[in-house]
């Protein structure tokens, strides 16, 4: 097996093949994350394309939006037409401009909250998995408690207690989403802890911090990143749900969930709710498509199938 195996890009040494069924894969010595081949599935490609379009729209929002998203300059509740391509809302604001500008808060907020909860969750999970005993018990029982609620319900309760606002909505989502990272990281670290390279390090007298950061972390990071990609979509959905319950961004800030909430009472003016919802759908779908392709690459069964269909 080792004869034809590739040279390790960073160290130049021959990479040892992982034993089949090893959940961690080959030992990685340096920080690295290569984009898996499986992203080349049609779904992964479509997802990436939609995401790129949204990123461009969000970055250049002030140039794309034809009008001021807050200006109440137009006749109220006019349908999609030549001037306001997606119509106007109950206060005579341009729906298209509001949608585009809302992407600028939603996207960074969702990515930010996912990065924070992935960091918090995997640090806590790593501590729990590495040290075990009482620390493990305390951290994982708190995680269990968070899992005892349906996500949006706990987020709603926390956001309501903190008071409405984007910042508090982000805190609420952070508090409800870290446990899934903690669980995954904990089990990965527990597996890695008993592997030979970590034990060797411990025998050399490495500290727990060095062992965790330099040796274990590079080997458990990929699943966490995949999980995080999958999670951006659900973070956007939860955030939209909170602002639908008017616990998100405070008016008049344009926000997709709040726009749908406004449209619920205006059935004749369908465009107010329809287009923001379409935005949420496409962007969450993009993340789910990408996440689905990434996840396939982690599962040995499906990874093989993906390889067969794409090659």
């Amino acid at each position, binding site marked *: 097996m080792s004869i034809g195996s590739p040279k390790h890009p960073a160290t130049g040494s021959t990479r040892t093949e992982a034993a089949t069924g090893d959940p961690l894969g080959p030992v990685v010595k340096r920080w690295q994350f290569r984009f898996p081949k499986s992203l080349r599935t049609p779904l992964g490609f479509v997802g990436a394309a939609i995401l790129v379009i949204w990123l461009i729209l969000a970055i250049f929002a002030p140039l794309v939006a034809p009008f001021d998203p807050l200006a109440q300059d137009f006749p109220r509740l006019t349908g999609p037409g030549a001037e306001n391509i997606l119509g106007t809302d109950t206060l005579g604001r341009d729906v298209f401009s509001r949608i585009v500008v809302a992407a600028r808060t939603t996207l960074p907020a969702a990515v930010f909250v996912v990065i924070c909860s992935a960091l918090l969750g995997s640090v806590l999970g790593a501590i729990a998995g590495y040290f075990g005993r009482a620390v493990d018990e305390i951290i994982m029982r708190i995680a269990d408690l968070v899992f005892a609620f349906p996500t949006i319900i706990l987020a709603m309760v926390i956001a309501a207690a903190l008071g409405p606002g984007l910042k508090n909505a982000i805190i609420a989502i952070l508090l409800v989403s870290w446990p899934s990272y903690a669980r995954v990281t904990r089990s990965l670290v527990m597996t890695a802890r008993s592997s030979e390279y970590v034990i060797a390090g411990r025998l050399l007298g490495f500290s727990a911090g060095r062992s965790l950061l330099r040796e274990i972390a590079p080997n458990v990071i990929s699943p966490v990143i995949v999980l995080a990609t999958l999670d951006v979509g659900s973070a956007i959905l939860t955030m939209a749900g909170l602002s639908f319950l008017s616990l998100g961004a405070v008016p008049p800030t344009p926000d997709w969930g709040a726009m749908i909430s406004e449209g619920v009472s205006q059935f004749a003016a369908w465009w107010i709710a329809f287009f923001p919802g379409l935005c949420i759908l496409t962007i969450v779908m993009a993340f*789910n498509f990408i996440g689905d392709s990434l996840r396939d690459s982690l599962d040995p069964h499906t990874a093989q199938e993906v390889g067969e269909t794409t090659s």
Partner: protein
Amino acid sequence: MAGASTVPQGTRDAAPPGPVENDAAQRIEPPKLHPLLRFILIRIGISILLIWGVTVVTFLLTNLVPTDPVAAILGDRAAADPEIVAQTREKLGLDQPLIVQYFTYLSNLLHGDLGVSNQTRTPVLESIGQVFPASIELGIGAILISVVVGLLLGLLSALRQNTIVDHAIRTLSLIGISAPTFWIATVAYFVFFFKLRVVPGAGRLDPWITPPPKATGLYTVDALFSGQMATFTNALGHLVLPSCVLALFTIGLLTRFSRSSVLDIIRFDYVTAAKAKGLPTRTVVFKYIFRGALVPIITVVGLAFGSLLSGAVLTETVFAWNGLGQYAYRGATTLDLPVIMGVGLVIGIVYILVNFIVDLIYGFVDPRVRVR
């Protein structure tokens, strides 16, 4: 297959230290808890601990509020008077240490006191009791639809793996879990009621129909009991669209999960053996593959129930469905904290109980789970 099922029995008997499972051996053995009973007791213990944890969470969140609860209860003029404020604080027990406040809170909860709505001044538990059956009716409708459709789609997708059918179902289920439920509800209501007029409008019954005499609180069941067929069909008609919308997300979830579960089972030797024996495809699929795949799927139904509860909070308002969800929505939009905390507590407890039942079913169906 009678011969095959005795094989694990035989190997278990052959294992030296394990308890021998026949009547004679059990009488000799010292009294020991049956593994199933032990499993049930452990699950009950965990559930009680979790419910206790939920009360701690809602208590802490209520006390975390930046706004002063006294100011919310008193008017502006009364809040300016320090004497009245001090009196109210004493009356509410706010001058006590946090731990004493928690025990007061817990004892109130055990006496069924979830507080009083800031908006309507009605006790929260009473209101929840009134709206709860509506959500249960909606939830049952949605879970029935999603289990049937989700399992069948997942099975079909797995059996036709990597064909156009599989890809179509996988893509659709991904889109299904990507759409915000409250938006789907708005669009569906607009299309099917406002434009096409194929479903009745909002609410649980048409306004001119009187609700059936209350027994269970589920309009369809109550109408059937009292023999009012017109009321039954009307209630059922009102139920169709909301439960389909609510089911959409869970259909996506269940389809994806049952697909992977069936794919795991298909690889087993006993399926190959059944096929090799020349059994008809229908027998292989439903008696061998589907039954094996069903066990892990049970756990996901519990998970699906959680997302149904969440979905209800976000969609009931759109359909003017007078349930727990609409109550929570009204509480959230008016920042009525006692209402929000009450709903959070009740949903948390219901979710824990559902997962407890799911665990029990799982323990009954799959003996391996109990041993751990």
